[in-house]
C-alpha cells in the first residue's frame, strides 16, 4: 500500500477512535450541570450521588479524549506536512484559539471537578462543572470551524504556486463564519448531547431492569429522557439546515449522498438503496423527486448530479458516502421515535414497566455513537478527492518525506495501543456501572437501604 492510503487509514482510524470520547465529554458535561444544579437547588442526596457517579464516568472518557486528541494535532505535522503548510495560516488561528479559550478552561477546571469535592464550596464546584462543560463546547467550536473551512473555504486568498502555494487569511470573521460553520456546529453539538444522554439512559435502564438503584435511576432516566427528546427533535432541524448548506456549497457531496448522477435532472431521495458506481445507478426504495423537494420545495426542480463534475473531481466512494449518510439519517429517526415514544409512555406512567422498551434503551447507547461516526464518514468521504474543497487534493497534502513503512509501523502501533485502550475503557466502565452510584464506605448502608426500599417497592 502507498503512503497516501496508509496515512488516510491512520488518520481516519485515530480520529474515529478519538471521536468516541469528546461527544461523551460534552454530552455528559451537560447532564452533570443539570444533576449538580438540581442537587444544589434541592439538597437532595440522590442528585449528589448521581453527580458524583457520573463525574467518575466523565473522568474516564475525558482522560482518553485528551491523550487521543494530542495524537490528532501531531498527525497534521507528521503525516500531512503539505496540508499543514497550506492551511497553517488559517487553521492555525482556530487551533490556537481552541487551546487558549477552550482547552485551558476545560482542563483547568477539570482538576477541581474531579478532585475538589471536599476542597471547595459546593457552588464553586458547580462553577467548575459549568467551566468544564463550556470548555468542551468551545473546543467543538474551533475544531468545527477549522473543519468547516476545509468544506467551504472563506475569508482567504491563495499565495504562491505549486508546492509552495498556501492559503492566507484575509478576514478572520469570514473564516470563522464560513458558509457551513453554524449548521455543522449545531449539528455536532446536538450529536454530542445525544451521545451523553443515551449513555445515561442506557446505564439507568440497565439498573431499572436489574432492580438495582431503581428510585435514583428513575430520576436520572427522566432527566436524560428530556434531554434526548429535545435534542433528537432539534437534530432534525440542524440536519436539514446542513443538507441545505451542502446543496449550495458542495453540490458534488450532495449528489453523492443520494447517488444522483445525471448532471441536471430532478433527484430522488432514498430510504435505502445501493449505488452501482460503474453503471451510475441506484437500486433502492425512495421518493421520486424527493431530494429536489427537500432542497427546492419542488419535485421537478433539477439538482446538480455527479456527472456535472469531471471524473477526477468526484468522490471516489459514492456508495460508501450514500450508505453512511442513510444510516445516520435512519438512526436519527430511530432516536426520535425512541425518545418521543419514551416520553409519551412516561407521561402516562407506563414507561418503567415496559421491559422490552427498557431493554432497547439499554442498548440505545450505541445509536448516537454510530450516527456521529457515520455522519463524519459521509462528510469527510463526500468531500473527497479534496482535503480542502476545490483547493487542495488529499493526494497532494501528504508529507513528502515520510515513507510507507514508517506509516505502516505507526499504524500497527496505534491499532494495538487503541485496542488495549478500548478494552480497558469498556472493562472499567462496566466495573463502575456494576459498582453503582454509591460510594463504598460511608454510603454502603445508604446504598443497602436503597436496595431494600427498591425491593419492597418492586414487590408491591
Amino acid at each position, binding site marked *: 500500500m502507498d503512503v497516501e492510503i496508509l496515512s488516510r487509514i491512520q488518520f481516519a482510524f485515530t480520529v474515529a477512535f478519538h471521536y468516541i470520547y469528546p461527544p461523551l465529554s460534552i454530552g455528559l458535561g451537560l447532564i452533570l450541570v443539570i444533576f449538580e444544579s438540581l442537587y444544589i437547588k434541592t439538597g437532595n442526596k440522590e442528585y449528589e450521588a448521581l453527580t458524583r457517579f457520573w463525574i467518575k464516568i466523565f473522568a474516564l472518557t475525558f482522560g482518553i479524549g485528551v491523550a487521543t486528541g494530542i495524537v490528532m494535532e501531531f498527525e497534521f505535522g507528521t503525516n500531512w506536512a503539505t496540508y499543514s503548510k497550506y492551511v497553517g495560516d488559517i487553521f492555525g488561528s482556530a487551533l490556537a484559539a481552541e487551546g487558549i479559550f477552550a482547552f485551558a478552561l476545560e482542563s483547568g477546571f477539570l482538576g477541581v471537578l474531579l478532585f475538589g469535592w471536599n476542597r471547595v464550596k459546593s457552588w464553586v464546584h458547580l462553577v467548575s462543572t459549568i467551566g468544564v462543560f463550556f470548555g468542551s463546547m468551545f473546543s467543538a467550536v474551533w475544531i468545527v470551524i477549522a473543519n468547516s473551512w476545509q468544506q467551504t473555504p472563506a475569508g482567504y486568498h491563495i499565495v504562491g504556486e505549486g508546492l509552495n502555494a498556501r492559503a492566507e487569511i484575509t478576514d478572520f470573521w469570514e473564516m470563522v463564519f464560513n458558509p457551513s460553520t453554524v449548521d455543522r456546529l449545531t449539528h455536532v453539538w446536538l450529536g454530542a448531547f445525544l451521545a451523553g444522554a443515551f449513555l445515561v439512559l442506557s446505564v439507568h435502564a440497565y439498573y431499572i431492569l436489574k432492580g438495582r438503584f431503581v428510585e435514583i435511576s428513575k430520576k436520572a432516566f427522566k432527566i436524560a429522557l428530556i434531554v434526548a427528546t429535545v435534542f433528537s427533535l432539534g437534530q432534525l432541524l440542524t440536519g436539514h439546515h446542513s443538507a441545505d448548506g451542502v446543496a449550495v456549497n458542495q453540490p458534488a457531496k450532495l449528489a453523492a449522498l443520494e447517488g444522483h448522477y445525471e448532471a441536471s435532472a430532478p433527484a430522488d431521495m432514498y430510504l435505502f438503496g445501493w449505488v452501482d458506481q460503474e453503471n451510475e445507478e441506484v437500486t433502492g426504495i425512495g421518493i421520486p423527486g424527493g431530494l429536489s423537494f427537500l432542497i427546492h420545495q419542488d419535485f421537478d426542480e433539477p439538482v446538480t448530479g455527479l456527472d456535472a463534475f469531471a471524473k477526477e473531481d468526484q468522490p471516489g466512494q459514492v456508495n460508501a458516502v450514500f450508505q453512511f449518510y442513510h444510516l445516520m439519517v435512519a438512526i436519527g429517526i430511530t432516536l426520535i421515535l425512541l425518545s418521543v415514544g419514551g416520553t409519551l409512555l412516561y407521561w402516562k406512567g407506563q414507561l418503567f414497566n415496559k421491559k422490552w422498551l427498557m431493554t432497547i434503551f439499554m442498548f440505545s447507547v450505541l445509536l448516537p455513537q454510530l450516527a456521529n461516526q457515520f455522519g463524519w464518514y459521509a462528510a469527510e468521504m463526500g468531500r473527497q478527492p479534496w482535503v480542502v474543497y476545490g483547493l487542495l487534493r488529499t493526494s497532494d497534502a501528504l508529507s513528502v*518525506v515520510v515513507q510507507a513503512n514508517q506509516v505502516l509501523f505507526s499504524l500497527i502501533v496505534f491499532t494495538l495501543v487503541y485496542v488495549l485502550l478500548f478494552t480497558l475503557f469498556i472493562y472499567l466502565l462496566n466495573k463502575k456501572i456494576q459498582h453503582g452510584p454509591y460510594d463504598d464506605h460511608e454510603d454502603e448502608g445508604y446504598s443497602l437501604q436503597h436496595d431494600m426500599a427498591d425491593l419492597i417497592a418492586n414487590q408491591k
Partner: protein
Amino acid sequence: METFLGLDYPTLWFLVVGGLFSGYAILDGFDFGAGAWHLFFKEENDRRIALNAVGPVWDGNEVWLVIAGGALFAGFPVLYASLFSGMYLPFMLFLVFIIFRAVSIEFRGKEPMKWWRRMWDISYSISSIMLAFLLGVVLGNVLQGLPINENHEYTGGPLLDFLNPYAIMVGITTLALFMAHGAIYLLMKTEGKLYAHIAILLKKGMIFFMVTFGITSLYTLLYIPHLSDSFRDSPALFVVPLAVFLSIANVPRLASKKKYQQAFIFTSLTAALLLVLVAIELYPTLLISTTDPENNITIYNAASSEKSLGIMLTIAAIGAPLVLFYTAFVYKTFRGKVKIDETSY
C-alpha cells in the same frame, strides 16, 4: 513590516512560542520528573501519594503542550511541517508514551490487585522517563540542525540519525533536570518518611543533573560552535548563561535549608532560562540546515502572514490572563500536602 514595541510580528510570535514551551517545560517537567522517580518508592501508600501529588494537575499541564504545539503550527507552519514529518518516528514514540502515561495514571487505582498496580507503576515511570528524554532528543537535534533541502524537507534517516551522541546527552540532561524539579515538587506535597526519602533522592538527582549539564555544556562549546555565535557577537548576552549557573547553584543551597518552595522557583527558572539560552542561540533561525545554510528555516520564511500573526497575537493577549487565572486557581485549590480521600487515584 508591522511592529509592536519595536519588534516585528514573527519575532513577537517567536517569543510567544518560546514562552509557551517554557511554561510547558516547567509544568509537565515536574510531573514527568515525579513520574521518573516513581519506582524508587516501594510502599503502596507512598506510590499513591506520589501519584496523587500530580493527579489534579497533570492534565492541565499537558494542555500546555497542545497550546504550544498549536502556536507553533499557527505561527510557523513551515517549521511544524518540516520538523514533525522529518522526525516522524520520534514523535510517534512520543505519542505512544503520552497515551501510556495518561492511561497508567487513570487506570492504576481502579483495581486492587498487586500485579495490576505494579504493571501500571512500571508503565507510568518508564513513559515519564521516555517523554522527558524524547523532548530532550528533539531539542538536541534542533540545536545541532538537520539535513534540510531547498523545499524545507528533511532528507536524513528515519530514526537512528536522531539518536546521535549530542541529542542523547541533551535527552539525559533534560531528564535529570526534570527529575530534580519533580523531586522538589514532591517534597512540597509529602510528609513523614516519604518526605525524608525524597530529600535523599533529591541530592542524588542534583548531582546527576549537574554532571550531565556540565558534560552537555562542554560538548556544546567544543563541538557545536555555531551555537556560541550570538555570544561572540554581543558579549552582553553572557548574562544569560551566568544567570543559569546562579539559578542552578541556588537549588542545593535552598534545598539544604528545606526551603523547597523557593528551590522549586529556581528549578523552574533554570528550565526557563535554558530555553532562553536556546532561543538566543537560534534566533532568528528556527531550524538549521546542515546541508546548506541557504535552506535554514527562519522565523521569516516559516511564518504565517502578518495578518494571521496579528490575529493570533490578539487571541494570545486576551487568552493568556485567563489561562494564568485558571492555573493559579487550580494550584491554590490543591496547595499543601497530599491527602488521600475517596476522589483520589
